[in-house]
């Protein structure tokens, strides 16, 4: 028995102030959608949290009409300084309601409260603060003296960072003078609808931001409006499969598109790496948010001369991860977001074993209810295995080895994706040389999964195109 068992330290569920039902936010009003009313559930115990009235086709039309009116009218004519004030107001309100939003996020998504509290919500607020500052300085952003907004941005976001992804999308769109029709993911609509309350309280003019909860059909409807010319730009974060469908739909139309899709990032550890910190970086890379991160470091490439030693350390560290109730402040790994996602993780992990890789999972007691998966790593993985090629989007690490820097580059780049990569070495020149050769939008050196609103983020190849964050993130919403 453990000498020092940590007593349960649950965050209070009441802090979330969950309502029995939530509605779409269209033209400055909360109103029932014309779609179905569905229950959103807590993936940690499979119980319903609230009923969500989903949007229908008519709601999409109404939202687009309201967004157009705002873009052509009051919002479009507003000075950058005034737009900035609204963004600062939203940023402050997110920070003020941070604890409530963190609990909402954890309940709806399954991620540990310490992550929603320390990462998701502070970063969401920081994104609004950052882009608020750009609103009156667009002429100096390097996109010409007077860059213009595109008009309406249709934005479709995933379930892995529900509020943060909404912030990544909405903040730059508003800073540049666009209006927004945003669809949160079907399994995680709540925090975006709380954000809608914040936006309503910030007195944003009607139609500037419309939030339409719904499933894939609503996403498709938004993309269709863009193909018809009613929406000027689509920003999508999600799977490569859906990204391809969207790109096909918009081919040949004037609609602008930015895509942030899947990844199979290589986290490369050289023999001169700071090994204890590399272990932490590997853990942050793949077990952060249960591995449900598009830029997750899901492939560990480790130099053969330190591979055995590193894997021993890594397993020892994984054994200390606390898996379980996401609301407990000491939980490191929470619930997988949905039964469907858990099934996919199981299927791919099983394929790893079937194809000959060696599976190891941290010993931990998983809760009886809810969607949980233990932190897992595979050794004896070959480049040809599915677990080395396909995005698992779960807490599953594939360990591969290399002998020379060239081999590391070849293996790291040998993927259809190119979102992120990590390099661990104490040698500065090697970091720079690797960063130059890695075909990935983000290369982290001696760290992993660090995000900052000032830093652009986006992919190569099947990981998408366009950048979010930083000065570069403005470009996706500007005509110039």
């Amino acid at each position, binding site marked *: 028995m453990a000498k020092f068992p*940590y007593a349960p330290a649950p965050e209070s569920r009441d802090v979330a102030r969950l309502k029995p039902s939530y509605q779409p936010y269209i033209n400055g009003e909360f109103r029932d959608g014309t779609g179905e009313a569905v229950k959103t559930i807590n993936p940690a115990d499979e119980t319903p949290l609230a009923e969500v009235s989903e949007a229908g086709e008519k709601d999409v039309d109404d939202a687009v009409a309201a967004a157009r009116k705002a873009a052509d009218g009051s919002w479009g004519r507003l000075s950058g300084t005034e737009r900035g004030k609204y963004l600062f107001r939203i940023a402050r309100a997110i920070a003020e309601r941070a604890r409530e939003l963190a609990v909402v996020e954890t309940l709806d998504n399954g991620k540990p409260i310490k992550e929603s509290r320390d990462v998701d919500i502070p970063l969401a607020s920081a994104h609004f603060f950052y882009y608020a500052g750009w609103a009156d300085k667009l002429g100096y952003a390097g996109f010409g003296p007077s860059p213009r907004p595109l008009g309406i941005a249709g934005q479709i976001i995933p379930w892995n960072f529900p509020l943060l992804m909404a912030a990544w999308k909405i903040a730059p769109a508003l800073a540049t003078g666009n209006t927004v029709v945003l669809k949160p993911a079907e399994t995680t609509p709540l925090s975006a609808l709380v954000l809608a309350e914040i936006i309503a309280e910030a007195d944003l003019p009607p139609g500037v931001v419309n939030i339409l909860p719904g499933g894939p059909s609503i996403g498709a409807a938004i993309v269709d409006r863009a193909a018809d010319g009613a929406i000027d730009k689509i920003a999508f974060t999600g799977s490569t499969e859906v990204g391809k469908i969207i790109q096909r739909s918009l081919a040949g139309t004037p609609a602008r598109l930015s895509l942030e899709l899947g990844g199979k990032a290589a986290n490369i550890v050289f023999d001169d790496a700071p090994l204890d910190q590399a272990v932490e970086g590997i853990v942050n890379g793949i077990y952060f948010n249960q591995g449900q991160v598009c830029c997750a470091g899901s492939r560990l490439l480790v130099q053969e001369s330190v591979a055995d030693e590193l894997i021993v350390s890594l397993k020892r560290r994984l054994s200390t991860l606390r898996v379980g109730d996401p609301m407990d402040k000491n939980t490191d790994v929470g619930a997988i977001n949905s039964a469907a996602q858990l099934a996919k993780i199981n299927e791919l992990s099983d394929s790893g074993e079937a194809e000959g890789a060696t599976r190891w999972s941290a010993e931990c007691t998983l809760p009886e209810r809810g969607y949980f998966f233990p932190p897992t790593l595979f050794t004896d993985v070959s480049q040809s295995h599915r677990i080395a090629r396909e995005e698992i989007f779960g807490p599953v690490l594939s360990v591969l080895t290399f002998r020379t820097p060239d081999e590391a580059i070849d293996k790291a780049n040998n993927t259809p994706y190119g979102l992120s990569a990590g390099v661990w070495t104490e040698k500065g020149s090697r970091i720079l040389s690797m960063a130059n050769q890695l075909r990935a939008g983000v290369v982290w050196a*001696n760290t992993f999964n660090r995000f900052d609103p000032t830093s652009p983020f986006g992919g190569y190849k099947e990981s998408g195109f366009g950048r979010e964050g930083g000065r570069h993130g403005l470009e996706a919403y500007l005509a110039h």
Partner: protein
Amino acid sequence: MNPNARATYTGLVTVLASDLADVTSSDASLRRFLHGLPGVDQVGAQARATALGTRSIKTTAKAWAIDAAISMVDLTTLEGADTPGKVRTLCAKAIRPDSGGPPADEGVAGRGRPPSVAAVCVYPDLVETAVAALRGSRVGVASVATAFPSGRASLPTKLHDVRDAVAAGASEIDMVIDRGAFLAGRYQQVFDEIVATRQACGEAHLKVILETGELVTLDNVRRASWLALLAGGDFIKTSTGKVTPASTPPVALVMLEAVRDFYGLSGEARGVKLAGGIRTGKDAIKYLVMVNEVAGDRWLDPHLFRFGASSLLNDLLLQRHKLATGAYDGPDYVTVD
């Protein structure tokens, strides 16, 4: 030998297994060994230490941690103004930190009388006083020695200091390393001094103070930790308490990693003592979390982990009362010694 050892530090194991004496036979081989240790990324170490500090330790876990922390305190007075009277007062407090209450209920943390502290830590000339005052108790007597705190004296003088303290009955010796020699790269000299001090200690346990505030980098902390462990230190200790910064979370992290890895290699569990700047129960609990998750719960034991502190004990007692009664006591409800 730990079965994982061979894979833990493959390179080092080969060295250790082949001939430990070779590693420590010259400046050159010691340097090769110490500089061959994996580097420490300061930003990453800081981040890990901070993350461990966010653990939420409540109710039963907090009660356990407070009592554990009390039992790990080396209650310290290292002032020029120390007198036998002051030391006797401190010793009384060390045996029985809290005046009131029935004897501790062994089964329930946080109830009854708190445990005694691990040891009292004084200058060599006051060891005799402390030994007399603590006779019959389980509280040890630790003495700083080797020209503490600067260590700026000849080796014979330092060893004389140690023998004095041991002769007076000290059960633990807290030595300082020669930071000047370490920073100048004279690792062999530092190593030899520790070995000589170790011998002068006889039966007494040896704690090796690295004075990490003067070593500055975490790479140096790691190297000095290994150097002290290789030379036979029973404990590695952060600081004298006379230099700022003293004990910091990243430094504690690196030292705990060192004893963990040394155990992995040699099968010998050596201790860590954090000293200087730890004044609140909250900080102490954060460090216990770090011990638990970095070194492992084997180290949650006064034989392998200590806090060198003076004011920490009173805050632990206040927190203990708070937990038992639900209300904070005023400062006059713990003793000033």
